[in-house]
C-alpha cells in the first residue's frame, strides 16, 4: 500500500509540474510583451502617423485599419451567422440536411487561415475586382469568423427555455413572431458575447489579410472601402521582416504587440463580464 501511495504522490508531482510549465510560459509571454511594450506606448504613439520609413512615430493608421476591418467583418458575419443559428435551433428537425450543415460548419472552422486568404484573393480581390482593400479583407475575415458566430448564437438560442416558445405559440403567435419577440430578446446577450469574442479573433488574424487588405508602407489614411490598410498584426509582421533598422523597429513592434494584446484580451474580458452579468440577471 505504501508503494502505491508513493506512486500516487509521484504522479501528482508530475501533473503539477506540467501545469507549472504551462503557467510559467503564459506568464513569460505577458511579462515580455508588457514590460517592453509599456516603455514605448504613449499618447503620441497611439495617435500619430509613422515617420521616417516606419522607424519612428506612431501606429495610428494600423489601429484605425484594424478597427475598419473588424467592423466590416462583423457587419457581414453577424446577421448571416445569427440567421443560420436561428434555422438550426428553431426550425430544423434532426435530419440529414442538418447533419450535413453541421459538418460544414465544423469543417469551415477547421480550414487553415491562410487558405481563407487564398480564397479571398481569388474571389474578392481578382474575380470581383475589389482589389486589395478593406472590403476584400472584411469579407474574408467575415467568412473566417462565421462558424464561431453561428456556434455562439446557437448556444444562446438554445439556452432559452422551451416553455417560452410554447407559451408564445399558445397565445397564437406565429413562429416568426415568437422568434422576433420572445427568443431573440432573451438570447441577445449570448449572441453579443459571441460576437465580441469573434471581433477579438478577427482583429488578431494576419494570414487572411496578407493578400486581401494589408499594406505596410502607406502615408495616407484609408479614405474608402477600396483603400488598402495598415493593421496591427500585419504591422508587427512587417516591422520584423521587411525593415532594415531593427534597433528602432523592434521597440515599435513591442509597442504594437502590447496594443494588440490589450485590445484582444480587453474584448475577451468584456465578453466574459457581459456573460456573467446577463447570467445573473436571468429570471429562469
Amino acid at each position, binding site marked *: 500500500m505504501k508503494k*502505491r501511495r508513493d506512486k*500516487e504522490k509521484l*504522479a501528482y508531482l*508530475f*501533473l503539477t509540474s*506540467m*501545469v507549472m510549465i504551462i*503557467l510559467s510560459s*503564459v506568464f*513569460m*509571454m505577458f511579462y*515580455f*510583451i508588457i514590460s517592453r511594450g509599456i516603455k514605448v506606448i504613449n499618447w503620441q504613439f497611439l495617435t500619430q502617423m509613422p515617420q521616417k520609413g516606419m522607424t519612428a512615430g506612431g501606429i495610428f493608421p494600423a489601429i484605425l485599419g484594424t478597427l475598419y476591418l473588424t467592423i466590416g467583418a462583423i457587419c457581414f458575419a453577424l446577421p448571416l451567422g445569427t*440567421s*443560420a443559428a*436561428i*434555422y*438550426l435551433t*428553431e*426550425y430544423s428537425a434532426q435530419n440529414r440536411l442538418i447533419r*450535413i*450543415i453541421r*459538418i*460544414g*460548419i*465544423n*469543417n*469551415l472552422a*477547421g*480550414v*487553415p*487561415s*491562410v*487558405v*481563407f486568404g*487564398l480564397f479571398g484573393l*481569388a474571389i474578392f480581390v*481578382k474575380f470581383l475586382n475589389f482589389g486589395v482593400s478593406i472590403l476584400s479583407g472584411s469579407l474574408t475575415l467575415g467568412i473566417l469568423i*462565421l*462558424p464561431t458566430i453561428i456556434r455562439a448564437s446557437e448556444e444562446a438560442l438554445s439556452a432559452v427555455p422551451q416553455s417560452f416558445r410554447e407559451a408564445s405559440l399558445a397565445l397564437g403567435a*406565429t*413562429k*416568426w413572431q415568437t422568434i422576433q419577440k420572445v427568443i431573440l430578446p432573451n438570447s441577445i446577450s449570448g449572441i453579443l458575447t459571441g460576437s465580441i469574442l469573434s471581433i477579438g479573433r478577427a482583429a*488578431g488574424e*494576419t*494570414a487572411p489579410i*496578407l*493578400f486581401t487588405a494589408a499594406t505596410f508602407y502607406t502615408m495616407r489614411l484609408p479614405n474608402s472601402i477600396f483603400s488598402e490598410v495598415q493593421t496591427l*498584426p*500585419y504591422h*508587427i*509582421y512587417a516591422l*520584423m521582416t521587411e525593415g532594415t533598422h531593427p534597433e528602432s523597429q*523592434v521597440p515599435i*513592434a513591442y509597442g504594437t*504587440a502590447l496594443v*494588440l*494584446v490589450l485590445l*484582444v484580451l480587453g474584448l*475577451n474580458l468584456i465578453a466574459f463580464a457581459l456573460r456573467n452579468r446577463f447570467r445573473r440577471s436571468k429570471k429562469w
Partner: protein
Amino acid sequence: MKGKFFLKEKIIKNIFLLSSLTSIFFLVGISLILFKEGLPLFREINFIKFLWGKSWYPTCDPPEFGVLPLILGSFWITLGALIIAVPLGISAAIYISELATPKVRNFLKLAIEMLTGIPSVIYGFLGIVVLGPWLQNLLDLPIGLCSLTASLLLALMTIPTITSLSEEALFSVSKDYKEASYALGATKWETIIKVIVPAAFSGISTAVLLGMGRAIGETMTVLMVAGGAAVIPRSFLQPARPITATIALEMGEAVVGSSHYHALFSLACILFMVSLALNLTADYFLTKFRRTSQ
C-alpha cells in the same frame, strides 16, 4: 389573411435556411477555387514529380516545383509540437478535472484560455525576439530560428485545444465508474489512469486530432520562426519551411496565372485536404464518444 400569413412565414423560414447553407456554400466554394486555380499546374508538370520532387525552386529558370520538403516540413514541425503539447495538455486536463479545487480550476482554465486569445503573430514575434536568441545561446546553435523554436511555440498554441476538449471528455465520464473503482480499493491515481482516462479515450483522441489540425494550419508563427529553408528536415535544430509559410511568403510575389501561382494553390489543396481529413476523423470520434458515453 391566413394565406398571406403562411406565405410570409414560409419566406422567412427559407431565408434562414439559405443563411445556414452559406457555410457549406463557402466550404464548397473554397475547395472549388483551390482546385480550379491549382490543377492547371499539372498541364505543365507531372503530378508525381510535384508530390515527390525534392527541390522547390519556383523562381529559377526552369522552375522546380517539388513539394516534398514543404509537406515534410509541415509534418515535422507539427510532430514536434504534438510531442510537447500532448503530455502537457493532457496532464493539465487531468489536473483541472480531477485534482484542482474549484477556485484553482477556474484560474487555470482562464490562464489556458488566454493562450487562445493571443494572436499568432504575437507568438511569432516573441519567437524572433525572445525564444530564438535564447535557444541559440542555450544549445549553441548557428541560428535560433529552427524547427524546434516553431514546434515549441506551436505546442503552446495547441495546448488550449487539447486541454479544454480533453478536460470536457474526462469530466463527462460517469461518476459510477469512479465510485466502483474506489470501492474495489483503488487509489485516486489508479482510478484516474486505469478507469477515467481509458473511458475518455475517444474524447481525448478528438482533442489531439483537432490540436494537430490547428498546428498544421498555423501560418504566421511558422512563417516567422521556422527559418524558411525549403529542405527535407533531418533534425529539430535545422530550419524548415512548412506549406503554410510557403504560401504566405510567396503568394505576394507570384504573378497571377503563372505556374508558380498555380503551384501555390496546389499546395493549398494539399493543406486543405489534410485538415479536412483531420476534422472529419475528429468529428467521427466525437460522435462515437457521445454515443458511447450516453
